[in-house]
């Protein structure tokens, strides 16, 4: 069965249409980010459907409950605005679900109606719907702008807008803010581990580790143990510096924190792969007096060792990848370092800077790459490219499985969403150890294939 038999190899320029999107909408990013605050209930200000879809998608990806409330818009709200719904909503939430923080994001509908969330939240406080010490924060996430990644960025920035406070002119030595960007809970743990090994007190926000990879305890806990606390978020204003990982997801928050509390910031690529992790470690060295502990050096050395052992299998292999810009830039860099050939790079997230960043990491060494961003940079387009000229490996989310099957190309699952495999929640791809895992997965894909395809006489025991 050729599932995508409709795909032809002529790349048709389309104007008005997205087929099989390589992105999704802003609110789900805001929801994911908000779940990285301790005892926070995300709230979707719009109709029920959006919220239900976002929760389902997060649940499919994490295999965890994803909690969020909704304003449940009706026809009336679409005419008169959603103020009454949000007021009632906040009242309900604090009296029944008892979170510490409610993080409101908008949807296309409430944006178009033009509801003013801060004003409604103030009204809720005035009416006594928000108990002492509890907080309501918000960000705007119309989906006809940006993508899920910018929704994540907006909510992360809202954490700064609402919480970060500078209490002294003296910043706290050795306290560094880490904005990890849209990565998996396991990646957040890994990033925290590296920061700790470097001897620093990191405040990581948002932090979904412990929330969306919560252990089974035979009890239902609406708010698992993880997440950045309000105290930590407030304290970010006193940190000596901020390291933002990924310009799209983390850049705006870091910039806002700099402006609000004069915390110097550096925006780096996501630490996926060797070089991007090097950059991250370098940045941390500025805060710990320059030490790199032996443990980290050894991890790095092990990664290089692995790559050298297996370099013949990486050499010259071509790759098509799709997903979110911050991820794609670092992945592309890593593939180049592995001596592989990124060939097609596609993101639905609009923004021209992406192409410049990809150009930078490719340098002069890799040629004939096609990179595309925006609404028509979708999976149909990618498939058409692949039909014209095949690649050896696909790297991207679950939606690549159609192409993988039709073209018989192995798929390494990376990104969001992954709704047909596990592992992404638990095993990081960031840091040196994460890079080793990526290598393992790439090699498994190639070597399994070689074992499957090689004729009997050249079927090798040792590889």
């Amino acid at each position: 069965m050729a599932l995508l038999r409709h795909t032809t190899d002529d790349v048709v320029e389309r104007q008005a249409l997205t087929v099989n999107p390589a992105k999704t909408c802003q609110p789900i990013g805001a929801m994911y980010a908000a779940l990285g605050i301790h005892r926070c209930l995300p709230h979707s200000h719009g109709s029920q459907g959006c919220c239900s879809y976002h929760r389902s998608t997060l649940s499919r990806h994490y295999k965890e409950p994803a909690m969020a409330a909704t304003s449940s818009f009706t026809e009336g709200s679409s005419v008169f605005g959603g103020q009454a719904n949000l007021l009632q909503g906040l009242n309900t939430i604090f009296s029944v679900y008892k979170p510490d923080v409610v993080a409101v994001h908008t949807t296309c509908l409430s944006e178009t109606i033009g509801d003013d969330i801060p004003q409604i939240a103030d009204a809720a406080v005035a009416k006594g719907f928000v108990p002492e010490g509890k907080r309501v924060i918000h960000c705007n996430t119309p989906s006809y702008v940006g993508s899920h990644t910018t929704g994540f960025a907006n909510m992360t920035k809202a954490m700064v807008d609402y919480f970060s406070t500078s209490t002294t002119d003296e910043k706290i030595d050795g306290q560094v803010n880490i904005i990890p960007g849209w990565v998996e809970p396991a990646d957040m743990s890994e990033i925290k581990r590296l920061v700790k090994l470097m001897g620093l007190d990191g405040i990581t926000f948002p932090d979904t580790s412990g929330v969306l990879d919560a252990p089974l305890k035979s009890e239902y806990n609406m708010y698992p143990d993880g997440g950045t606390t309000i105290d930590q978020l407030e304290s970010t204003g006193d940190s000596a510096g901020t390291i933002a990982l990924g310009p799209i997801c983390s850049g705006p928050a870091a910039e806002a924190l700099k402006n609000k509390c004069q915390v110097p910031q550096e925006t780096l690529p996501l630490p996926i792969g060797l070089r991007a992790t090097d950059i991250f470690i370098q940045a941390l060295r500025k805060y710990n007096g320059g030490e790199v502990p032996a443990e980290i050096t050894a991890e790095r050395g092990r990664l290089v060792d692995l790559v050298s052992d297996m370099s013949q299998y990486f050499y010259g292999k071509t790759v098509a990848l799709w997903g979110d810009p911050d991820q794609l830039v670092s992945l592309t860099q890593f593939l180049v370092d592995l001596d592989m050939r990124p060939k097609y790079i596609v993101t639905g997230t609009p923004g021209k800077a992406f192409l410049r960043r990809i150009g930078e990491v490719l340098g002069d060494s890799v040629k004939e790459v096609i990179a595309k961003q925006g609404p028509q940079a979708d999976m149909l387009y990618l498939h058409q490219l692949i039909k014209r000229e095949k690649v050896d490996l696909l790297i991207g989310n679950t939606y690549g499985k159609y192409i993988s099957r039709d073209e018989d190309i192995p798929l390494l699952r990376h990104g969001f969403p992954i709704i047909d495999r596990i592992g992404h929640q638990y095993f990081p791809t960031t840091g040196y150890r994460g890079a080793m895992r990526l290598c393992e997965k790439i090699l498994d894909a190639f070597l399994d294939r070689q074992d499957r395809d090689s004729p009997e006489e050249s079927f090798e025991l040792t590889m």
Partner: protein
Amino acid sequence: MTTTQILADRRAHIHEKGTAPFNIACEKQSVAGSVSQRACVFCGSRVVLYPIADALHVIHGPIGCAAYTWDIRGAWSSGPQLHRMSFSTDLQEKDVVFGGEKKLYQALVELIEHYRPKAAFIYSTCIVGLIGDDVEAICRRVSAETGVETIPVHSEGFKGSKKDGYTAACNALDQLVGTGDTTGISPLSINILGDFNIAGETWVIKDYYKKMGVDVVATITGDGRVDDIRRCHGAALNVVQCSGSMTQLAMKMKQEYGIPIIRVSYFGIEDMSKALYDVAEYLNDKTVMKNTQNLVRDEVSNLVPQLRKYKHDLQGKRAAVYTGGAFKALSMIRSLRTLGMKTVIAGSQTGNKQDYKRLQELSDEGTVILDDTNPLELAKFLEEKKADLLIGGVKERPIAYKLGLGFCDHNHERKIGLAGFEGMLNFAKEVHGTVTSPVWKLASLRDRLVDRHRLLDGDRSRNGNRFVEGGNAS
């Protein structure tokens, strides 16, 4: 009534059988601020029309609504797979300001030219309702210009609940019904409505009808085809499952073409058998009735012995059922009884009074009936009622697992057909697998330490296992 803290506004939506006269509140908008498990109008339309495999399904709106409904429902098609693609106008800010009509028109023309579908369904999402695009007019124009019938689906999410989406879908289907040629359709013929061919279930059912000597004209909502729907008004009877979604189309067809309706469920031995008998009885044909008797007898006598071993292990276990509509919950309760299980909680997202009434009549004393619940409430009741199993959908699954209980998906994401007699066997296996899974014993470290000896010293020779000692190396 219980220690569960319940939202004041929610109290009326919960009923515990035997505690008060039955009067449940339902068919209401969810309380704002609740973590409702419900979806929107668009969702309702999309799931119903989605299985029409040779039609083009275009979602007019921003990207999300399309991205989240891309091939998430395992409604199998025996031919075209066009329905599994995701087409969106991906509205951008300027479209919201200036309107998306031009974009929609252009997208439709491009798509229709490229795919030459049998028909096209254009779903309006919330924002389209708000910016006021005249989708109707665009559809008329595209139909006229391309010759492919382009049908608007008025599924703006905020205009109600999932149920209203079913209405919108029925209205859209109604445009097709009655436009095809009905010559040659047997008087012993039916349409299957409201079965979605999840994991091939419609095929199982269709096969039963075939064995009975009954022709199926259209399987409207499962492995559906446009041309079949066009001529389905030639069938003698509409057989409607999942009462919520397709009843309205059936009603329309009754008014316009005089086609009678019977309402069935294909889940569980009793309901499945009854469905087939009802159809046979209605068609009032001796051979069909004879065939039906043979079929049911063969299937049941084949099935029942196979269920025995599952029933043995499941006897007395306690189940909770949370479905989309309440009608389905009835079949679930009966099926669970067949397996010796007791339903302690039964609820649905969008049930109506009548269904809830039947639900509580069927239930045992003490069973909690829930309308439009939320995770906190559900989790509390699951604990209080000591459920061993939850039957529900994607958002309920992780809640069950976190509590350390079994789960069975009876919604879009089931991977194994649960309809029909063979579906009942699958159901038994699935319930057995999850309820008796060793993982629940591993869940608590403390219990495990106490239990250690027993766990380690299982009787190795039981169950037909053979442990063969290797010879000593000399």
